């Protein structure tokens, strides 16, 4: 199993786009762990959303949207993406709820259609992925200290 630090431990105070990692082989299964050491909440209006994205060099779409962070604490979330399954999205409810994805994604406009920043919080999208993986951090509210986090990707 190959592992990469998609994002080594870092502090961010604003919305950020991570650098894509281009796969050197064709993974069929990806495990992503978001490890949050802290996230500022002193104004009680700060929110942090982290999306894991994939793409083919032209089009990009979300494959994971970790649960939105709204409380200052340490968090660790792990999500698995199985590329061999039918295209479907699964919620983080207990139990999870699976639903078929649209067959064709409209990805031209960020935050619209099926482009990046559209997968609902806590969801994972299974099915084919592109030749790269990246991430987006969306920060909102009155942020002065920010979020301390890292992201590990394991693939086989």
């Amino acid at each position, binding site marked *: *199993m190959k*592992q990469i630090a998609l994002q080594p431990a870092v502090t961010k105070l604003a919305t950020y786009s991570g650098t894509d990692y281009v796969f050197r082989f064709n993974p069929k*299964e*990806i*495990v992503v*762990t978001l*490890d949050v050491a802290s996230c500022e909440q002193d104004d009680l209006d700060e929110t942090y959303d982290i999306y894991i994205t994939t793409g083919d060099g032209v089009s990009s779409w979300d494959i*994971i949207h*970790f*649960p939105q962070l709204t409380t200052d604490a*340490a*968090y*660790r*979330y*792990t*999500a*698995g*993406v*199985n590329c*061999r*399954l039918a295209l*479907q*999205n*699964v*919620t*983080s*409810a*207990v*139990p*999870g*709820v*699976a639903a078929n994805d649209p067959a064709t994604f409209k990805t031209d406009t960020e935050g619209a259609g099926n482009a990046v920043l559209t997968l609902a919080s*806590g*969801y*994972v999208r*299974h099915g084919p992925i592109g030749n790269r993986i990246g991430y987006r951090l969306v920060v909102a509210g009155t942020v002065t200290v920010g979020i301390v986090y*890292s992201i*590990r990707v*394991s693939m*086989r």
Partner: protein
Amino acid sequence: MKQIVLFSGTLTVTVAGTAYEFTSDPEELIATLSITSHDRTSANETINIYITSSDGVSTWDIVAFPQIATTGAKIYTARVNTRLLGQNVTTATPGTAAVDPACLKTDTASADEGIKTLTAGMVRHGPIGNRIAYVAACAGTTPITVCSIRISMR
């Protein structure tokens, strides 16, 4: 099929075993728990054995063998298929499957989807990390369990 002995010996206290790091990328695991003996001198001794997976940062249960609460030899085998949608299956007959939460919250043991949260008898299919380990949770007055755990992978 590669096989390892994850544990062999006597368990008397709650313990987390050393993780075995895969040297291949298995898509199917078979875990067999063989109980040679389990002490019930005070009639309150129990042991719960979990098989866990990890990516080096996060750790989660993939098997929770049925709780051992009687004397006598027993063998349990659980199978984990990484090619399936993340889901958990009970040991009822027939087993009942439920889709797992898409994001496993693993920061705290015994809470949410951290280790020691899978219900006794359940197996979790879906993606695993690059290592496997066991956790034994012993309870009661004089818990003494002689057992072994074998893992087969392909």
